[in-house]
């Protein structure tokens, strides 16, 4: 028993050490964001500042195009999520509730597309969107985001539709509800938590996306928040680290909040749907 206890103490120590190592970069980001410049630039780091300041957040949000680019991000993400949810819920119902010829092919497509590296598609997407004058427009970016948001949402929502108890559908059928009526009154409320989880996840992936936005949007006033942040770093000699960390914190906040909300629910969908930033 004592050996077991000392083992447990050893494992706990390693676990806490691992926690410190993993979380340190996030701690360092937040800590830097609130630190005065002299503490940031000193050679000996200050772990916890005794003189916290909000000035870096002021610098970050007053940098050119911060609000415009955040607004762009929100537009792109919200439209992408809305379109993806409506279209993919229909397809998810088809996959979960019907057997039909071509079902397997459709599944292969939904999974296979998610495996394509986004960077492999930038050239044709750029050229095709240029042909239809959608380069440097938010519409163009939304189109490229749907290429990953749709297959992911179809696959994840399918799992949620499958989880609906069969008895309830049956009850609706016995009631003689119309097809659409049954769908709306029975299925939709039941799948709502799944829809929320999937939307939030699509929201996060779209908000985090970088390369499509980077190649399609050239005007600073048309960029998204991630591209804005990627251009923050000036010449490395005079980098405003405090401002950069404040900006980083601001860009991360919506994602972290949403992520913490849905983390449990999406855990299984992730293994199936497979999306990483």
């Amino acid at each position, binding site marked *: 028993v004592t050996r077991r206890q000392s083992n447990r103490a050893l494992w706990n120590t390693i676990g806490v050490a691992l926690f410190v190592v993993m979380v340190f970069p996030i701690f360092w980001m937040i800590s830097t964001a609130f630190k005065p410049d002299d503490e940031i630039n000193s050679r000996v780091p200050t772990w916890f500042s005794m003189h916290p300041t909000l000035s870096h957040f002021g610098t970050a949000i007053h940098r050119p195009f911060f609000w415009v680019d955040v607004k762009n991000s929100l537009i792109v993400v919200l439209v992408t999520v809305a379109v993806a949810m409506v279209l993919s819920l229909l397809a998810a119902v*088809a996959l979960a509730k019907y057997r039909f010829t071509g079902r397997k092919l459709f599944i292969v497509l939904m999974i296979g597309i998610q495996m394509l590296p986004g*960077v492999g598609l930038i050239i044709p997407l*750029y050229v*095709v969107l240029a042909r239809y004058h959608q380069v440097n427009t938010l519409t163009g970016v939304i189109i490229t985001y749907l290429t990953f948001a749709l297959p992911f949402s179809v696959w994840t929502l399918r799992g949620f539709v499958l989880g609906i108890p069969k008895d309830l*559908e049956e009850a609706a059928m016995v009631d003689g509800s119309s097809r659409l009526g049954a769908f709306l009154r029975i299925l939709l409320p039941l799948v709502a938590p799944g829809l929320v989880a999937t939307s939030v996840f699509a929201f996060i992936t779209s908000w985090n996306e970088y390369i499509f936005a980077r190649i399609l949007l050239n005007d600073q006033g048309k960029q998204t928040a991630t591209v804005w942040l990627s251009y923050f*770093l000036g010449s490395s000699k005079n980098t405003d680290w405090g401002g950069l960390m404040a900006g980083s914190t601001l860009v991360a906040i919506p*994602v972290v909040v949403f992520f913490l909300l849905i983390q449990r629910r999406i855990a299984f969908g992730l293994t199936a749907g497979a999306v990483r*930033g």
Partner: protein
Amino acid sequence: MASAAETTPRSRRRSLSWRRVGSGAVPYGLILPVIVVLGAILGYPIYSLVRLSLQQYGLFELIRHQGRYIGLHNFGLVLHDPVFWHTVVRTIIFTIANVGLTMALGTLTALLLVRVSAWVRILLTAGLVLVWAMPPVVAVQVWNWMTNYQNGVLNYILTELHVGNYFHHDWYATTFSQLGIVTVLIVWGALPFVIITVYAALSQVPGELIEAAEIDGARPWQVFLDVTMPVIRPVLLILTSLSILWDFGVFTQPYLLIGQPAIHPGNYLMAIYLFEEGYFKNDYGRGAAISLLMLVIVAAMSVVYVRKMVRIGEVQ
């Protein structure tokens, strides 16, 4: 196609009622919108990708919206370019290092999570979820700040721990060191997903089995290989295939952390090679050829994963 649901009379009634409602055309109507949209925004670009790869297509052609057919010339250029082959080899080594580290550290940490006290498990899981939630571009900027050579905290910590004298150490001085830092960043970002998923799989391992094996005098590693491993093997396989695909095509982290000005053919990874040679140099035809070659490599690698997932989708 016989479904498992049809074995009990109750679910037979269900499937019949749904089938009656959805006579034939309904499922096709339901998937039609997704098919049409994906066809337009993905199918058509992929068709264009094949056409582009056979064309001379630069800025001039981009403005005219009209390429010039040159056959397999682009592929010849790429396949005879030593940079392409060096990049493929570098990317494969990079992928093996990243996936190997992610999977090894991820599995070890998941095993650790089983052994620690509840409060440590909650603490560590919470921390992992926070890391998981970090947007990649944000993570890059934070690592940029931690590793900068003037007063990066990493140099300070390593010096204080007497690992060596890292005062003003430049992590971006050599290709090896650049890709090493990128590896640390990627493994750090990928670990939470792997740890939490493997931990979930580990909780499926019956505790009695492990106890029985221990009573029988099996050593810890024997227990792991003979009892734990068979249960978590499918999950490890899926995670490994996913990690291979992601790391092979990774762009954001190396591109932003190394920084565009410091990127050159000597430190290209596949995605950056494609971006620099195709997009940045406005050589869309050659870029398309590179994309196709890359997509073929990735498709070949993803066969295992897609087949496994399709089997899951088929059963349900």
